[in-house]
């Protein structure tokens, strides 16, 4: 097997809100074309870690390297350029409420490319049809369902064909069938667009069906307990919290 290439490397990362410590000593690699899952109990700092990885918050300590370039040792302009290659969906959707879906998806294109309004509209329609929202171009976020918002957010995230996609709980709040359809969609997109994907989730089904690599964050010790392929963790990891998390509900994967 060839040595996988690290796309994102996290080294000695400490996450804090002001004085409040959330997580410390985080060390892990996200390889190229990984579907990397950040898991852990509610409130352990998964969203916080994600927001640090996309360069939204400055880490209290430690480094994040994307393509071997440190996210925080470069100028603001250079970081902005790096962030352009990220596509992100947030836990609550975060679509701009005063813009239609088509405008929401077209916004990054408008900002970062020289395309004409008509071309932008065309691409936005394409992205919306990829997530199954053909025909909903002129709807406002308040006029569509929660699951549709999640998918529209996905369409916005892939607008610029990003190298790395970050999803914060993409399938939370969806029924199991829609959730697994969304998982399939993510899998399909990552495979065909050859992008690396980082997902925050605690859906066991997603973790085992699409995850190729994971990190497990713990609330009590405020650090990571394990990293690796989910099946491998299930088989080899002897940490009780990790086992409990992965086996809850009597899942028979082992």
């Amino acid at each position: 097997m060839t040595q996988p290439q690290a796309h994102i490397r996290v080294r000695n990362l400490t996450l804090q809100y002001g004085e409040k410590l959330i997580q410390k000593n985080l060390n892990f690699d996200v390889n190229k074309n990984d579907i990397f899952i950040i898991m852990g109990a509610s409130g352990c700092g998964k969203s916080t870690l994600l927001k640090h990885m996309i360069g939204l918050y400055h880490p209290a300590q430690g480094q994040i390297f994307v393509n071997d370039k440190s996210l925080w040792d470069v100028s603001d302009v250079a970081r902005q350029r790096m962030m352009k290659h990220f596509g992100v969906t947030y836990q609550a959707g975060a679509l701009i409420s005063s813009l239609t879906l088509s405008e929401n998806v077209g916004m990054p294109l408008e900002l970062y490319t020289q395309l004409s309004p008509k071309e932008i509209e065309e691409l936005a329609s394409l992205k919306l049809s990829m997530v199954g929202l053909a025909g909903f171009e002129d709807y406002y976020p308040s006029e569509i369902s929660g699951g549709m918002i999640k998918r529209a957010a996905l369409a916005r995230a892939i607008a610029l064909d990003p190298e790395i996609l970050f999803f914060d709980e993409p399938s939370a709040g969806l029924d199991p069938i829609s959730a697994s359809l969304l998982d399939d969609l993510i899998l399909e997109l990552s495979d065909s667009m050859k992008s690396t994907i980082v997902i925050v989730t605690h859906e066991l089904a997603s973790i085992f069906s699409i995850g190729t690599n994971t990190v497990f964050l713990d609330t009590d010790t405020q650090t990571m307990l394990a990293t690796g392929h989910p099946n491998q963790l299930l088989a080899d990891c002897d940490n009780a919290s990790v086992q409990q998390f992965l086996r809850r509900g009597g899942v028979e994967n082992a």
Partner: protein
Amino acid sequence: MTEEVVTFHRHKQDTLRVLIKGDWSISFGLQNPEHFLSHLTSSPETQYVVIDASQLGVWDSSLISYLVTLNGLSKAQNIEVDVTGLPEGIVRLIALAEAVPEREGVAKQLVKLNPVDSLGQFVIQTFHQFTAFITFLGEALLALGRLVRAKAVFRRQDLVIFLVDTGPSSLGIVTLISVLIGMILAFVGAVQLEKFGASIYVASLVGLAMAREMAPMMTAIIMAGRTGAAYAAQLGSMQVNEEIDALKTMGISPVDYLVLPRLLALIFMMPLLTIYANMMGVFGGALVSIIMLDVTWSMYLEQMMATVPLTHFFIGLVKSLIFGVLVALSGCYMGMNSGRSASAVGQAATSAVVMGIVLIIVFDSLVTIVTTVFGI
């Protein structure tokens, strides 16, 4: 673009070969499908389209977009498209884009209105707005009724917060504006009255104007800008987050829970603020008189007490109370009826201020006309 990235070839009569070459990126813009269409229409015997990507470089959505369009155009003419020559990723993305076709009737139809229609719509909308506001007024009244019967549900802490926010927290701006208004009145009056040697009447002028008009009106306008807008923004963003729906499902009347404490806070605080504004205005007027006109404090106050009957002051107080109701209602009404987007909340805040000020001035004119007719 330096060279053609798409070329068309025909080896067999019924087969159009689309050769895709080089690098495709959205930074180069999208390809126009017109050439393809003209190749199709120029030879109607075409039955197959074969896409050849053997010379394709790097690609992104611009290629997918182009291919999906080609596919659609060909399908419309019952022509088969062979995509087997394409890299697997592209085939799957195209399949993904076509997997869920547009459902009939979901797309929004944009209707163009002629001027008569849009005028009609405007009238209908205005009428709806009007009836909605009257309904809201009625609901607020009912809520007040429930309050009297001690059946209204709202948190007393909320009321305290709103009282603090409308009262003590707005003292600064009320002080500033009232003192300045008092000074302006005194200045303007002094210039005229001094010519007649009647400069002591500045005290009467400032006292009367403040008590009857300026103190209640200026305070109300300040509150419309400060508190009315805040109310609209608070309720509007609750509307956006479905918090108002949540209250309804918990069996709590949003009017009781949200509007009542805000309304009470303004009803209670407006008269107090107006009394305070009166004092500050008189103080401002006195300052100018003492500095400009050789009047002493006691002369000024005595003159004012002697010439300005207390009726004016009470009329001002009653007006301020009504102003408070108007400001609270327009703020809450706009907030409760806000649209569900960030910009709609902004609009609600703006409309609340505009509506508040318009109502204040209109009501004030009415009162002035009525009291003049009755000679009060």
